[in-house]
Structures are given as C-alpha cells and as structure tokens.
C-alpha cells in the first residue's frame, strides 16, 4: 500500500517551486492588495503547478504577510503617537490630540479616513498652519517696525557726526545682542 501522503498544496509555495525572491514578491503583491486570482495567474506564468486548494493563498498570507502587516501596523501606531507629541501643541485639548493621533495612525497605516474624521483633521492642520503663519507675520512686522524706527533716526542724525556714530554703535550693539 502506498502510504505516501499527497503534499499539501501550500507547501508548493514554501518549497522549491519559488525562489526566496519570488516568495517575497508574492508576499508584497498580497500586501499591496492583489487578488488571489491575480496571484494564481502570476504563479502560473512562473511555471508553478496550478494551485487548486482554496485556502492555499490564505495560509501563505498568514505565514508570510501577516507578520509584516502586524509589524507595520504596530509601527504606524507608535509613529502617530510620536509625531503628534513632537509637534508640541500646547493649545490642543485632549480630544483634539486624540483625533490628530488617530487620524495620523489611519493615514500611516494606509487606511481610508472616513469623511468626517478627514474633515476634522484637515481643520486642525489648517488652523495650526494659520497660527504658525500669524506668528511669522508678527515677527516680520516687529522687525520692519524696528528697521523703520532706525531709518527715521538715521535721517535725523544726518550731518551730525556724533549722532551718526552713536546710532551706528547702538545698531551694532543691538545686532550683537540678537546674535
């Protein structure tokens, strides 16, 4: 009696029919969302015997794709926490912080944000951006005012050697203090 068991169909994908590079490529195709039928078609072009078992690719996914997906997802969650914490927004309340972290995680994980969350997140980002722009404008305005003040003094001091020298020393001292 022949006691040899027929090898499981999915052992083909882990065996010699595929090189390591091809196995990685199959893994990446599945992770990118390729359908099982597309993958089977691709395997056929490589000369791999036809896979008839309906769970073969599901088992391949669990062995090869799931660990990668789990690692990526864990990383996305950690990265989202770090990104938002590093932004250092002291003006955000807990709810805003949580929304920003959750939206960031879903984006990093490649998920599709639902419309309401996408809109709320965009508003937070745009508001934060507008606040940064305002801060920059205020600084520039202050700088302009200072320059305008010095120009007016320079005009007044024209022709007066002592006044011009004093003004030059003052400007030098202010610039030194700023640097």
């Amino acid at each position: 009696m022949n006691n040899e068991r027929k090898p499981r169909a999915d052992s083909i994908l882990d065996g010699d029919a595929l090189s390591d590079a091809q196995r990685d490529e199959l893994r990446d195709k599945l992770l990118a969302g390729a359908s099982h039928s597309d993958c089977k078609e691709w395997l056929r072009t490589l000369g791999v015997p036809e896979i008839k078992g309906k769970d073969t690719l599901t088992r391949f996914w669990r062995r090869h794709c799931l660990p990668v997906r789990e690692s990526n997802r864990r990383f996305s969650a950690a990265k989202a926490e770090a990104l938002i914490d590093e932004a250092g927004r002291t003006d955000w309340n807990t709810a805003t912080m949580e929304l920003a972290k959750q939206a960031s995680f879903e984006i990093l994980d490649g998920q599709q944000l639902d419309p309401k969350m996408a809109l709320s997140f965009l508003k937070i980002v745009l508001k934060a951006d507008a606040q940064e722009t305002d801060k920059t404008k205020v600084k520039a305005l202050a700088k302009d005012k200072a320059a305008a003040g010095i120009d007016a003094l320079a005009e007044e001091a024209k022709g007066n050697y002592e006044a011009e020298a004093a003004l030059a020393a003052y400007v030098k001292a202010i610039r030194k203090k700023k640097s």
Partner: protein
Amino acid sequence: MNYERLILEALQLVHPRMLTESVLLSDLRIMGAKISLTDLRAHTARLETKSQVTVVTGEDATRIKITPDGLARLAE
C-alpha cells in the same frame, strides 16, 4: 476559534489607537475567521460589557479600542 481573543490581539497591536469595525473585520477574516459584521458587533458588545474594549460610534465609522482590562486578559 476564540474570536474574542483574536479581537483583543488585533487591538493590542495598535494600542492606544483604535481600529475601525471594517478594518477589524477584514483582519479577522484574513486570519481565517468566518465572521460577519453582525457577529463582530455581538463579540465587541460582549467584550464591552466586560470592560475589555471601548466602542466609539461615530457618524461615519465605529471604532474600537482595547482597555487596560482587555490587555490584562491577554496577559493571563
């Protein structure tokens, strides 16, 4: 197949973040669970009564996160 444990394990990966119902359902099915959305909701409702998950129902999506009690259950 212990669906409650599978749900908690999927949520533990992203803690303290949440997973949407659709992503969680997709994950469970990929792991071989023959589970419908109704089944998933029944399991998460049970987990919520045990305070092991929190379910947040939004306008567009329902999200679920694991709680400290849920993490403790996995650690047992």
